[in-house]
């Protein structure tokens, strides 16, 4: 009987490690890494008379980065997709494993392989230290950060592996560009001197990044799990909660230090796709979704109004996010300081953020139960407003009034205030009317869904009573 892993380890991790340790990606990476590092060291030793290896630094980190930031994260892209294609996920779901544990097991397995690869580099770091007078602390820090980068990328690719191939390809490119922008300069040009990069010199930014990294990983795990989970599992709740926590952490960091103020906006940008996803979800059809929350009593019951799937709860979630962002903006002094025009711009921009999200959701058929309807309505609305505004601006001298009137419509809601030179108060009555209209449409359309949810919540309180 196999006794290679003890009982405490997740079954999915056991399976993934058994498979992963024999996979071509790991074996090729391992041999490639060792071969290239030996070659790099020989070239360094031969090309310098005093044995100084500092000239090979760029090559060393590029060689290490190749498997850690490319091969292993990309190998995770097949993780869940292959299981879906092979029709093996159904069999796993009939066990006690949840979708989250399945995705988490796959991610940890990739991270373990990355750690294994990184460990094989230690002799070369020691060699660089003894022969080349390299700063070993800086090398180890860089290797550690590269591992963190690898873990983040792997979380991203594992999450994407549950999505159809075309979408996956699109996001690979996006993720690759993102990683080059974010991680590339850090390692390629920063080396061990991370103090040169602004973010690392501010303690609140560093603390926020340290907290956000595990939150991001968990969020990616949930995004992957949400895609494959049986309908009775509630993954929307944890996804929304984690995105909210990221916003909370970045916003708090932004308030604690003026140098980290950009984090408020970064958190806002980060949470936006999750808001759109929440507004486009189908309402639950099974009571199992509510069970874990309603069993926690009144508080759980209240939380189920926001942290269960469906556009109707998503609407409330977006309102909550909006209020939180408003709180951060207000505490940061963006809404009430500076010249009058600037404050107005900020107020309009904040208002525009919420309305840009909610208005298409109300306009789209059936409250945008399908994501493409949401996007379509957003695009059509944007085009209409853009066309009217452009025409008006070109043919009239009253552009500020028009911008005020359309300030609540995307995309002017987001971009208009930034580029305009507002000097008059926005038409508050118009804003209020639009807000009331959005809420009224939501209230009218969501009533039957809330009634259905109430029935399901009632069923979720029942206990199973079997006979055999």
């Amino acid at each position, binding site marked *: 009987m196999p006794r290679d892993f003890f009982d405490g380890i997740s*079954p999915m991790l056991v399976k993934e490690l058994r498979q992963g340790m024999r996979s071509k990606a790991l074996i090729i990476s391992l041999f490639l890494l060792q071969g290239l590092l030996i070659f790099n060291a020989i070239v360094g030793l031969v090309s310098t008379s005093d044995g100084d290896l500092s000239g090979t630094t760029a090559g060393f980190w590029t060689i290490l980065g190749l498997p850690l930031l490319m091969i292993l994260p990309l190998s995770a892209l097949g993780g869940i997709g292959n299981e879906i294609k092979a029709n093996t996920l159904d069999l796993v779901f*009939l066990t006690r494993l949840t979708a989250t544990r399945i995705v988490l097991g796959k991610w940890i397995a990739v991270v373990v392989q990355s750690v294994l690869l990184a460990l094989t580099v230690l002799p070369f770091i020691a060699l660089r230290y003894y022969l080349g007078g390299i700063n070993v602390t800086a090398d180890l820090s860089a290797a550690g950060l590269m591992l963190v980068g690898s873990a983040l990328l792997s979380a991203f690719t594992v999450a994407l592996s549950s999505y159809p191939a075309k979408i996956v390809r699109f996001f690979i490119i996006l993720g690759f560009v993102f990683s080059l922008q974010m991680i590339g300069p850090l390692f390629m040009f920063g080396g061990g001197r991370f103090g040169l990069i602004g973010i690392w010199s501010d303690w609140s930014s560093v603390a926020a990044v340290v907290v956000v990294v595990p939150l991001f990983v968990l969020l990616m795990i949930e995004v992957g799990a949400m895609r494959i989970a049986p309908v009775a599992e509630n993954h929307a709740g944890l996804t929304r909660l984690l995105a909210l926590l990221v916003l909370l952490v970045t916003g708090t960091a932004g308030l604690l230090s003026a140098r980290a103020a950009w984090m408020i906006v970064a958190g806002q940008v980060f949470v936006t796709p999750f808001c759109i996803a929440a507004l486009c979800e189908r309402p639950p059809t099974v009571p199992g979704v509510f069970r874990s929350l309603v069993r926690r009593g009144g508080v759980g019951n209240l939380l189920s109004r926001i942290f269960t799937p469906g556009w109707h709860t998503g609407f409330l979630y977006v309102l909550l996010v909006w209020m939180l962002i408003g709180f951060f903006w207000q505490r940061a002094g963006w809404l009430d300081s500076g010249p009058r025009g600037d404050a107005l711009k900020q107020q309009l921009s904040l208002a525009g953020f919420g309305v840009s999200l909610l208005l298409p959701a109300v306009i789209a058929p059936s409250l945008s139960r399908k994501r493409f309807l949401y996007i379509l309505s957003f695009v059509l609305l944007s085009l209409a407003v853009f066309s009217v505004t452009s025409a008006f601006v070109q043919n009239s001298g009253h552009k500020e009034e028009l911008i005020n009137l359309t300030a609540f419509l995307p995309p002017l809601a987001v971009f208009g205030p930034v580029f305009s030179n507002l000097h008059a108060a926005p038409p508050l009555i118009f804003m209020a009317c639009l807000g009331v209209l959005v809420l009224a449409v939501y209230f009218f359309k969501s009533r039957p869904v809330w009634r259905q949810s109430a029935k399901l919540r009632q069923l979720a309180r029942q206990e199973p009573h079997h006979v055999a």
Partner: protein
Amino acid sequence: MSEPPPLPIPVIAVRDLHRSFGKVHAVRGLSFQIYPGQVIGFIGANGAGKTTTMRIMATLDMPDSGSVEICGIDVVNFPTEVRQRIGWMPDAYGSYEHMTVLEYLDFFARAFGLKREAREKRLREVMDFTDLTELAQRPANKLSKGQNQRLCLGRTLLNDPQVLILDEPAAGLDPKARIEFKNLVRLLADQGKTIFISSHILSELGEMCDTMLFIDAGKVVHFGSAESLRRHNSTGALLDVRLAGDPQALRAWVELNPDVTLVDAHCEGGRIELASAEPEAIAACLRKMIADGLPVTDFHREERRLEDAFVEILKSL
């Protein structure tokens, strides 16, 4: 006064089940009940709604309306509890790369929450039962079809389920593997498990199952024993007749006798169906054949094949 014995409670209860995929109404108001220890053959043409029904029973799909209870537990409301009581074997499934048979089963045993000693004991039991012990170190994705089916059955049995739902388990198996699989099912039935099994090989279902559930276009067409399915819409007797001379003589004779129909012909004669199954009528038929000069070498009564009943029922719909 003694109380009457309580009515048995169904292990599987399906009530007015409906499921559509777009415009295709796969299951239309399906209702039936299965009792403990029964072995049910689930029959239907391709697209009749068999797999959809079985997937709903296995908590892998959701009904549009209606309900399914396994051991009295609603599959929609309590899927986790239902999963502890069922074993599901799909018609198509994949295996894992870079894993041996033993590691494959060990993974699922861990996933079912079995701890070390219990897991090792259960793995030994299951591997012995499915005759996989010798294949333990073979790669799980390099097995023959029959071995793969045994592996899948082994996985299905790891959590010792009360109800087994097997979708086309014998499809693609060679005769030897089919017989082995049939024997395993009979052994499981002897252990008291309720087995719900779909197949296109009706003769084998007839040998394995005590009840047949026949559906078409998402509705129940027949629900009863294999014998009752054989006799469905049939009051006559099926007779196999062999002649010494020209087998065409039987066809000519049948045409002259309106109470007899030719079911199919073979090189020595053919199978005929007599309108009455009374022994006197069968004896009279034989007497008449001989009196009419047919060189009869063999004349015996045959059970109606399930395939024939299946086709006739489909024709009559």
